[in-house]
C-alpha cells in the first residue's frame, strides 16, 4: 500500500493513463461497474480509460504482473452481466478509443476503434451509401467492441446474419499485453485457424478488442413496414415461410409480438393501436424492394395475405414517420415492460422448424405449474429467437418471485434442450446464464472452452467468472 492507502499498481496505472485516465470516485465505480441487468451490485476498484492500444497493452501487462482482475467494458448495454464488475476488478473502458477511420468504398470496409458507438458507425458510413448492418434498439449506446465481443444479433439478423459475419479484421490485446493483429483487411485468408472468430462472441474472457475492420453492406433501400395481425405463433411461422419463398423483395425484418406485449406498450406510452381490431398476436415485417424500385411486388404480396386469409388484418406505413411509429411498438416492448413491473427474462432460440411445438409445450407447462405468471413473448422469430419475459405477480414478494423463477427456468431449459435449442440466443452467458450453460453445451465443449481460456489467460484474470467459473491459475 502507498501512503494514501491505494495499492502500488494503481499509482503505476495512473502513470500510464494520466491523471484523468483513471477514475475511483464512487459515482463512476457505480455506473461503470454494471450493465443493463441491474441485478448485481457494482464494486470495481477503479475505472481505466485508455486512449490508445499501447496504453491498453501496458495496462494489461501491469495488471498481469500484479494479478489484478480486469473487466473489459463497452457501452454496458448487455443483458447477461458480461460487463459487470462486482468483485473488486479493474474496469477497462474502451469509450475514449472511438476513432472512425475513413470508409474504403471499394473494399466496402471501415476501420474503427472498439469504443466507437454503433450508431456513430452507421452515420459515418451512410454518407457512402454503406452501412454496418448490425442494428438493435440500444445502438445509440452500445459500442463496436461490445457488439463484437458478444457477437450481437438484433433486428436485421434474418437478412444479414450476426456480427460474426461483418468483421474482417481484429486487433486484440491479450492479458499479458501482447497485441494481436488478426486477419487485417483480408476478405480471403485461408492460412490455418481463424483466430479472429475465436474472439468474436467470447464475452471478453480471452482478450480485449481494441480495433476492428468492419465489413459494410449497401444501405437498405426504401423499405415497406407493415404490422400484421395473426391468430398465434404457428400462423406467424407459416407467414414467415410465405415471406421467405415470395419473389420480388427481400425480407429485412420479421418480428413477432403477442397482444399482451402490445397492450403494455400502448398503455405505457398512451397510444392507440394502429389496428382497428385487436388480435392475439402480431408480426412486424420490413420488406425491401429490389434495386431500381421494383414493381410493387411487396405491396401485392401484403395485400394477397389478407385475401388468402394468412393474416386477419394489417396496417401499412405510408411514410418514414409511420414506419418509425410501427417499429417503436416493437422496439419499446423491453423498456415499457420494465416500467410496468419486475421481470425475469430469457432470450432463447430453437430451430425455426421446432419453434411452434416448443412454444406450445412451454406455454402449457407454464400454465400448469405457474398459472398466476403472465408470460410476455416477442422476438426475432425468423431466427428462431424468442424473448420470454415473466412478470412478477403483485401478490408475490420479489425474493419469492425470483426463487420461483428458478423453477420456470429449469422447466424452460429442459424443453429447450429437448428441442435442440439454445438457452441464450443473443444476450450471451455472462454471469446471469452461467449456471445453465450445460443445458446448451456438452461437457466435451465446456472442457474445450476451459482449455482455450487456459491457453490465452492462464491466471484467469480477464473478465473472471464470466461464462464459466474462474479457473484459479498457477501464479508464475
Amino acid at each position, binding site marked *: 500500500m502507498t501512503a494514501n492507502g491505494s495499492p502500488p499498481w494503481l499509482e503505476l496505472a495512473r502513470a500510464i493513463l494520466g491523471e484523468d485516465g483513471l477514475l475511483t470516485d464512487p459515482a463512476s465505480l457505480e455506473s461503470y461497474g454494471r450493465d443493463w441487468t441491474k441485478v448485481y451490485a457494482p464494486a470495481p476498484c477503479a475505472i481505466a480509460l485508455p486512449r490508445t492500444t499501447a496504453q491498453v497493452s501496458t495496462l494489461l501487462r501491469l495488471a498481469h504482473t500484479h494479478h489484478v482482475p480486469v473487466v473489459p467494458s463497452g457501452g454496458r448495454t448487455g443483458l447477461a452481466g458480461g460487463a459487470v464488475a462486482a468483485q473488486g476488478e479493474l474496469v477497462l473502458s474502451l469509450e475514449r478509443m472511438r476513432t472512425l477511420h475513413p470508409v474504403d468504398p471499394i473494399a466496402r470496409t471501415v476501420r474503427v476503434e472498439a469504443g466507437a458507438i454503433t450508431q456513430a458507425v452507421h452515420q459515418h458510413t451512410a454518407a457512402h451509401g454503406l452501412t454496418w448492418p448490425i442494428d438493435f434498439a440500444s445502438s445509440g449506446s452500445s459500442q463496436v467492441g461490445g457488439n463484437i465481443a458478444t457477437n450481437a444479433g438484433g433486428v436485421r439478423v434474418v437478412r444479414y446474419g450476426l456480427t460474426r459475419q461483418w468483421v474482417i479484421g481484429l486487433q486484440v490485446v491479450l492479458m499479458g499485453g501482447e497485441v494481436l493483429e488478426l486477419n487485417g483487411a483480408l476478405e480471403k485468408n485461408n492460412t490455418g485457424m481463424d483466430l479472429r472468430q475465436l474472439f468474436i462472441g467470447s464475452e471478453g474472457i480471452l482478450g480485449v478488442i481494441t480495433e476492428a475492420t468492419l465489413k459494410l453492406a449497401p444501405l437498405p433501400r*426504401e423499405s415497406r413496414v*407493415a*404490422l*400484421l395481425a395473426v391468430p398465434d405463433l404457428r400462423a406467424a411461422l407459416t407467414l414467415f415461410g410465405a415471406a421467405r419463398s415470395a419473389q420480388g423483395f427481400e425480407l429485412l425484418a420479421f418480428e413477432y409480438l403477442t397482444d399482451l406485449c402490445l397492450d403494455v406498450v400502448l398503455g405505457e406510452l*398512451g*397510444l*392507440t393501436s*394502429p*389496428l*382497428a381490431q385487436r388480435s392475439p398476436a402480431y408480426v412486424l415485417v420490413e420488406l425491401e424492394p429490389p434495386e431500381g424500385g421494383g414493381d410493387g411486388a411487396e405491396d401485392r404480396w*401484403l*395485400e394477397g*395475405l*389478407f*385475401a388468402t386469409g394468412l*393474416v386477419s*388484418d*394489417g*396496417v*401499412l*406505413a*405510408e*411514410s*418514414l*414517420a*409511420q414506419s418509425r411509429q*410501427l417499429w417503436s411498438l416493437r422496439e419499446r416492448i423491453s423498456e415499457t415492460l420494465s416500467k410496468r413491473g419486475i421481470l425475469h427474462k430469457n432470450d432463447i432460440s430453437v430451430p425455426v422448424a421446432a419453434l411452434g411445438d416448443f412454444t406450445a409445450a412451454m406455454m402449457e407447462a407454464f400454465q400448469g405449474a405457474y398459472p398466476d405468471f403472465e408470460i410476455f413473448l416477442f422476438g426475432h422469430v425468423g431466427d428462431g429467437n424468442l424473448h420470454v419475459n415473466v412478470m412478477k405477480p403483485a401478490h408475490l414478494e420479489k425474493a419469492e418471485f425470483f426463487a420461483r423463477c428458478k423453477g420456470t427456468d429449469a422447466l424452460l431449459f429442459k424443453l429447450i434442450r429437448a428441442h435442440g435449442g439454445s438457452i441464450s440466443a443473443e444476450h450471451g452467458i455472462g454471469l446471469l446464464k452461467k449456471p445453465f450453460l450445460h443445458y446448451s453445451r456438452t461437457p466435451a465443449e465446456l472442457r474445450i472452452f476451459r482449455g482455450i481460456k487456459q491457453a490465452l489467460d492462464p491466471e484467469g484474470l480477464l473478465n473472471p467468472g464470466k461464462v464459466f467459473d474462474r479457473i484459479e491459475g498457477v501464479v508464475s
Partner: protein
Amino acid sequence: MKILVTVKRVTDYERKVKISPDGLSLVTEGMNFVPNPFDEIAVEEALRLQKAHGGEVVVISIGHKDASKEIRQALAMGADRGIHVIAEELDPDAVARLLMKIVEEEKPELVIMGKQATDDDANQAGQLLAGYLGWPQATFASKVEGLDSEAEKAQTPGVVIAGGEATVIREIDGGLETLKLKLPAIVTTDLRLNHPRFASLPGIMKAKKKPIKEVPVASFGVDITPKVRNVKYAEPPARKAGVKVADVAELVNKLKTEAKVI
C-alpha cells in the same frame, strides 16, 4: 352530411430537400412523396364525423398526376371517393379558385383542409376559399383533450356538429378559443386535433375499387396564372461547430461571458 377533404402531395418532410443549382426551385427527382400531414389529420377528422353523422367523405387533390397515390391512401383510410384535378404546381390562390368550382358542384356542408402544406407552408388556401365562397371559417382546429386522452383513443371527433352549426376549438396564444360556425363552413386542421389512422390492408383492398374522377385543370375555365413568383430558395445557414470545455467552471464562464444566457 357530405364532407370535402383536400389532400396535397408533398415531399416527405423527413427527407432533406435539395435546391436546384439556379436557386429557383426544389429538386423533386428521387424525392419520396407523402400526403401533407395536416391533410391526413383533416381526412381523419372527416372520417370521425362521418362515423358520427353518416354521409359521404370526398377527397380532392389538385396536382401532379401521381397524386392519385395520395388520394388512394385517403380512400384506404376510409374516404368514399376521389376527385383528382391534374395540374402543375399552383399557387394557393389558383387552388382556392379551383376548389370553389368543385364546392359549387359538390355542395358539401363542410370542407376540411390541412392548415398548411409542409412543402411551401403557405397557409392560405383554406382562408382564400372561405373568402371566395363567403363561408364562415375556423382555422387551426384543435382539441381540448390531449392526444393521449381517452377521447382520442375512442376516436371522438374534435369538431362538434349540432343543429346546423359546427363548434371548433382553436389554439391561440396563451389559451384556447371556441368558435361556432353556421354550416356550410371551412375548417382547417392543426397538429393536435387527432392522430390519423394507418391505412389498413382491408382498407387498401377496398380502396382499389373506389372511384377517382380525373379532371384536367383546363376544364374549369379558371385563370391559374401564378400571382406570386418564387425568386429564390436558400439553405439555412450551417450550424457552427460546438466547443469542448474542460470543466464546469469553464462552461459556466462561457455561458456568462460568451453566450450571455446566465
